[in-house]
């Protein structure tokens, strides 16, 4: 028999300049990067990073400007973050500084025009 461990899913908002240090801190404590994604919100773009250890998921939210979305990549800490960050770059137009493996906007080749960020489309509105 396995002892049941209920999943804990916590959320915290942090500033963009705190993200890399926070990621480093999580790595030091043995957390894995579970996923990362972006969400368009009225005030900009919300980027979510989920770190997991022993069925506890710590989620960090960073809100960035949608007119010039830019964020420091966490791929220096979690190498495999390049997959999520290339996806967010291609679909949401977020530029990641110091991305360890940058496919230059050619990772997600979809039929629709990207990024899906009205603020980045010339003359676009919501």
């Amino acid at each position: 028999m396995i002892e049941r461990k209920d999943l804990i899913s916590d959320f915290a908002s942090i500033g963009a300049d705190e993200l890399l240090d926070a990621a480093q801190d999580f790595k030091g404590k043995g957390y894995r990067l579970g996923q990362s994604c972006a969400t368009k919100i009225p005030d900009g773009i919300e980027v979510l990073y989920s770190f997991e250890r022993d069925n506890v998921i710590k989620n960090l939210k960073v809100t960035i400007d949608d007119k010039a979305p830019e964020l420091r990549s966490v791929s220096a800490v979690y190498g495999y973050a390049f997959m999520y960050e290339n996806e967010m770059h291609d679909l949401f137009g977020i530029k990641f500084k110091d991305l360890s493996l940058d496919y230059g906007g050619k990772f997600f080749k979809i039929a629709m025009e990207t990024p899906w960020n009205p603020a980045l489309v010339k003359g676009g509105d919501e």
Partner: protein
Amino acid sequence: MAKRTIIPFGPQHPVLPEPIHLDLVMEDETVVEAIPSIGFIHRGLEKLVEKNEWPEMVYVIERVCGICSFGHGWGYCKTIEGNMGVEVPPRAEYLRTIWAELGRIHSHLLWLGLTADGFGFESLFMHTWKIRETILDIFEETTGGRVIFSICKVGGVRKDISNEKLSEISEIIGNLKVELSELTDVFLNDVSVKNRLVGVGVMTKEEAVEFGAVGPTARASGVDNDVRRDGHGAYGELSFVPIVEAEGDCYARCKVRIREIFQSMNLIRQAVKQIPCGAVSVVVKGNPSGEYVGRMEQPRGEAYYYSKGSGTKFLERIRVRTPTAANIPALVHLLPGCDLADVPMLVLTIDPCISCTER
């Protein structure tokens, strides 16, 4: 330095079950770099959250994958239940576990068949898929569907399986074990099969952790990681220890999946013996608000589900991070150094599901 050439591999290729494109930078017959691109079958399923009410989204999320459709439906329901604090009846948890393990058997058998096809062993491919057909028949009899089941809902499941039918399923699974044992012998001991798999695409435990690999891909490299260990569903009441192999090559990835099929069969038989009586769903009132991140062990590995509720019938965001998305970094790092002829085996043995990854 040898002259470098680029060989485009995919998205359409005889050994590729899924449309991923790889630009393989070659020096003679050796891969020196692999540049992936995806998106050819992107369907925008997450965007549909704006048009579908959250109870209906389970039908959309199931369609993330035609192979682990039950698992994705359960993952979504589990996340919304976590968000809303819904307690699911124990019988429903057992039924979900049984369907999820049937899904794992079906997925691994599908993968074994495709891999046999990939290394040119057509009769092995056909025998494997013949066994898989029996699992699909069980799905059809118990849910009405062979690919998309629509059986899971927030708060439980839509339909019960009678105890007589469960005993019958247990017996069918017992008979399949015998048939599968013969195939296992070929997959694990045939010289021509071993020549294609042993020592190919080795990923050490340290590399698997560094590249963030999940599921059988990681467990074949000695990473003892399986979401089922948290005891969700009925797993907490069943005897379960993750299957782990240490070699980290294509053969180990094949071996883990074969052993997991037998393990899933055991889990189903245990669950059938222990399943309690009672309701299979509860009424769920209200709408999700706030955020929640849940995870599930799909056949290909750990999947993440992020939901952001608005307190209305429409969620603000749903995000599915599939196991293949987590295994692509491992693939990109594994390919350099391998022979061109081994590329298909390396790609196949991470069991890529690209339509899931693109959603």
